[in-house]
């Protein structure tokens, strides 16, 4: 089929791009409008009130929860990157016939539902769970290690586990494009493996790392179920507060303002990070090379 001459292939992206753009913009506009409304006896009354924004700025707990979301996103991005590189580089060296099965295995955690995984973690890490039973049977501990479950440690571990596939996938794809002869040449010229990694592999996979970091950061920062069901008393999240404000409290304006503030904070951190990575010399070298 030939397309009319004026319509180029790139234009095929327009309908989906429009849908995406509107789909992301419309809810933001709705939130912005709601955030200045008033609530009167379970009725949303159109108004222009700065109440929610003043309260948002003047109440530390909102900032604390937003900060916690950013921190959780960043920590998960770092931990998945640290464990992602060795795995991605190993996958790159697999014989082609094993790469398909490896992909399937890599994505296995994503096939099960989140709630199922959460209860599986409880069975594994609980006071009477697999890990504690094994440790006690081996005589390594006398009583159950209670920090394994219902602690910030648990949240960190599970967020890293849940999000690792996204990071590994991005790094793996990037690593596949690294010309093996470059690494061989570096080694021939006397670079130690770590030198070769930091001077060849790392710069060339930087765009992949950036994609992984942003995906994992956003997913982990917005997580609500894992912290609340596995994080114990430390599981408070901005997301859960937003849900409560929309629900029982019926304070839609406050919920909208908090949701927008969280979004803005996530966007600011992600954008700053993206700028930092993509403007670096090595990323420019990869992304702006001639096709």
């Amino acid at each position, binding site marked *: 089929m030939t397309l009319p001459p004026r319509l180029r292939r790139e234009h095929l992206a327009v309908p989906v791009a429009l849908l995406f753009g509107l789909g992301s913009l419309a809810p933001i506009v709705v939130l912005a409008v709601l955030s200045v409304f008033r609530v009167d*006896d*379970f009725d949303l009354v159109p108004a222009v009130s700065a109440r929610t924004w003043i309260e948002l700025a003047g*109440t530390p*707990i909102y900032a*604390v*929860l937003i900060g*916690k979301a950013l921190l959780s996103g960043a920590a998960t991005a770092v931990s998945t990157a640290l464990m992602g590189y060795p795995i991605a580089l190993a996958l790159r060296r697999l014989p082609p016939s094993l790469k398909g099965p490896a992909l399937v295995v890599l994505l296995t955690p994503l096939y099960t539902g989140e709630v199922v995984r959460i*209860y599986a973690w*409880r*069975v594994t890490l*609980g*006071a*009477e*769970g697999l890990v504690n039973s094994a440790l006690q049977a081996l005589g390594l501990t006398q009583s159950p290690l*209670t920090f394994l*479950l*219902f602690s910030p440690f648990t949240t960190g571990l599970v967020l890293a586990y849940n999000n690792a596939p996204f990071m590994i996938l991005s790094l793996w794809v990037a690593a596949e494009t690294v010309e093996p002869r470059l690494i061989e040449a570096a080694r021939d010229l006397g670079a130690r493996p770590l030198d070769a990694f930091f001077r060849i592999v790392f710069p060339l996979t930087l765009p992949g790392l950036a994609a992984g970091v942003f995906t994992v950061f956003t997913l982990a920062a917005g997580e609500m179920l894992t912290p*609340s*069901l596995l994080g*114990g*008393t*430390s*599981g*408070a999240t901005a997301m*859960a*507060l937003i849900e*409560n*404000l929309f*629900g*029982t*409290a*019926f*304070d839609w304006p*406050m919920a909208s303002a908090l949701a927008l503030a969280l979004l803005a904070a996530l966007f600011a951190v992600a954008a700053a990070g993206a700028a930092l990575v993509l403007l670096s010399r090595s990323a420019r070298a990869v992304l702006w090379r001639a096709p």
Partner: protein
Amino acid sequence: MTRFEALTGVRVRESYLSSDDAQFAALRTGAASDWDIVNPSLNGAWRYVKAGVLKPLDLAKIPTRSQMYPPFASTDKVKGQNGATYAVPYLWGLNPIVYRTDKIQGEASYATLFDPKYKGQLAMRDYALEAIAIAALHVGVPRERVFALNASELAEAKKALVAQKPLLRTYWQTIGDLTNLFATGEVACAFSWRVPYDELKGKMPVAMAKPKVGIMGWCDCFAMPASISDEKAELGYKFINYLLGPDYASQIAEKGNYATSSSIIRDTLSKEKQADIFVDDLSVMDSFLWPIAPDNYAEWLKVWNEVKAS
């Protein structure tokens, strides 16, 4: 329901709702035009009454109402300012403390939930309304006022909750979640619903406690939309009358472990069954506490999140 259908020749069709809020919204916006009977909670009935979405009821048409327990028959929560009654309480239960008798000494009370002796074995529901009310009871706020705290009482409750936090194993989210926590030995005492007790009795030594200082209850009511036709309203009265009668009460006591608001079959039940559905000792009704979100609930949410982030 089949019994009622056989008696009257009317078919009952049910719609399912996710929450009281959703039902209220449907009535307000007119999305509920094909409903003849609605199901507000006793605590939330006031907003339906205030919004004028319910039909004032002719109580003479509900003769089985005569055997309702006094706290349900006389409650003001279903009445409008004009004195008319808009809803009839029919099904209720209590939110007890559930505890392991092998791990907790004596009968549990709200103080148990704040007792450092049981560090790491306690759980509270992740729900500002109930958690703050329990802390208020614990620090000595009288029952009548725990859902209308002044600023200093709210601060006192918060202090108690902050002190309680390190003693807790976790905050539970859903009742299935809490049942799992009991079953796996993570938790020995929690502010609860009755579900973990029903699921686990016989498997482990569990008991329910109903603190005299105030016990939180829930209660569902029946009501009719204001727009209902006279003809359908007659059927509605018959339906409400049936639900307060002996047939339905026996079935729900047997199958669901719940009591209706009527004493109609109480004396025919075994002592054990009476205890199971909380009607063995009727003095429990003197301690009823119906949770109701205060006007400044957003403030409570803030306090609760400050506790959780402390």
